[in-house]
């Protein structure tokens, strides 16, 4: 697996100003995989995504994406290499309408979905294309946040808690979407609190504690490790 890794993170450290949040994250993701980062609040999951994306004010270590070391790059260049993020709390822009939000991230590679295809996948968005982005329901906003990075042509997606605060039926829909993306060849790193949801979509799970990866559990082994997982997550 390690030779085919699309992303390899080694010894990633990160800081917000004075506070040291990542203390050496190590993990890797193979092409076509869906991987989750699990952990308690404040363990450093979101910071890890931001670290990969180059959005932390300061980071050290190694983040190799598709054979390229990106640790010295800024987030704009990293994005141009084919990584797209769907941030925590979705990052929908209030001053843009739905379509403007959709069109915002520039295309960085061929093969992105075009607008018609996106509206086909998410018909709600088409109906409300002229509405202000933040006037949508939470579920619609989440769809919008995922949809807009599908347009860019990036094949590697970072999704930060896409199910947070959403109704079960919508969570299910999102699960379906992720599964579909996987079949279309997308590679996805998912930060999740919702362990059940994670188990339904992911191939492997990394456990993050206090800014470090402390364990990895393959989805196939998950039933055997329920106790351990509960211990990590404090369920």
């Amino acid at each position, binding site marked *: 697996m390690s030779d085919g890794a699309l992303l390899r993170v080694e010894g990633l450290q990160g800081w917000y100003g004075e506070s040291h949040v990542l203390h050496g994250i190590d993990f890797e993701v193979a092409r076509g995989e869906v991987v989750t980062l699990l952990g308690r609040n404040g363990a450093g999951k979101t910071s890890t995504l931001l670290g990969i994306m180059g959005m932390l004010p300061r980071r050290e270590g190694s983040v190799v994406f598709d054979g390229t070391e990106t640790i010295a790059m800024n987030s*704009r260049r990293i994005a141009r290499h084919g990584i797209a*993020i769907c941030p925590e709390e979705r990052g929908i822009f209030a*001053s843009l309408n739905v379509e403007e939000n959709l*069109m*915002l991230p520039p295309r960085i590679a061929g093969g992105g979905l075009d607008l018609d295809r996106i509206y086909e996948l998410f018909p709600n968005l088409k109906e409300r294309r002229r509405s202000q982005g933040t006037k949508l329901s939470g579920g619609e906003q989440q769809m919008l946040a995922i949809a807009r*990075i599908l347009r860019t042509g990036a094949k590697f997606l970072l999704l930060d808690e896409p199910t947070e605060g959403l109704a079960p039926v919508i969570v299910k829909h999102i699960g379906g979407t992720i599964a579909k993306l996987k079949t279309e060849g997308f590679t996805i790193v998912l930060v999740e609190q919702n362990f059940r949801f994670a188990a339904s979509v992911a191939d492997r799970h990394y456990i993050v504690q206090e800014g470090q990866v402390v364990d990895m559990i393959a989805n196939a082994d998950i039933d055997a490790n329920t106790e351990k997982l509960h211990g990590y997550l404090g369920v």
Partner: protein
Amino acid sequence: MFELLGIPPQVLMGQLLLGLINGSFYAVLSLGLAVIFGLLNVINFAHGALYMAGAFVAWMLLNYLGVGYWPALILAPLAVGIFGIVLERTMLSRLYHLDHLYGLLLTFGLALIIQGLFRNYYGISGLPYRIPSALAGGHNLGFMFLPNYRAWVIVASIIVCFGTWFMIEKTRLGAYLRAATENSALVNAFGVNVPLLLVLTYGFGTALAGFAGVLAAPIYSVNPNMGADLIIIVFAVVVIGGMGSIMGAIVTGYMLGIIEGLTRVFYPEGSSVVIFVIMAIVLLIKPEGLFGRAA
């Protein structure tokens, strides 16, 4: 025929129109200030000095190169905008991660330098700049004589304000700007060149100041101090409209021009302070400004 507080309606009409003309300058200047503040979070205290520089560049184009008013209307803002870009790249961009205050102080220092240099080389009494011949003369509107040039000022400012509004609210580039105003880190992480947006925005904002300067050159004395006191008035306009609100800056600019104009009729001595009285009232009642989103 009725009279309002002893002022005949014709006179009032005339004064309203004059207020609108002054408001045109406020609108263009405060628009530039608001655009810059919106995206860069910088209170551009050099705005008045750049307005002055715009007028001077127009004068220099005419006197050194023989370039007339119409080309200067494009070239002078361009020159001022490029100067702004240099300032942004070399200095301002180092301050974005800091508090507003530092941007304000830096640009205040820059304003002193720019004004001081022009004062040293061109003296203080001002330089003549003629109204372009196509706009000389005027029309009698019945209630007042409206010089053609003043009419042009209104038209030009409305075109520029509307154009800027359209660009920001209705175009792709404008969507980048609005999004970057809300969350520039995320926009950058989508692969949009935010630093480039910032520098272009500053360049554009300063070019607007330069444009206002060229507009002003034929009617006001072109002198190094012409922007010095204007800056705090224009800044007050931006605050009243709502910091960073494009529409707020434009509408408030015209509106305050008119209010100031009326004050000049009823209480001329007070016309220099009326804007601040309004600013105090607005901030105490509606702190985010008339058109601002609540923070």
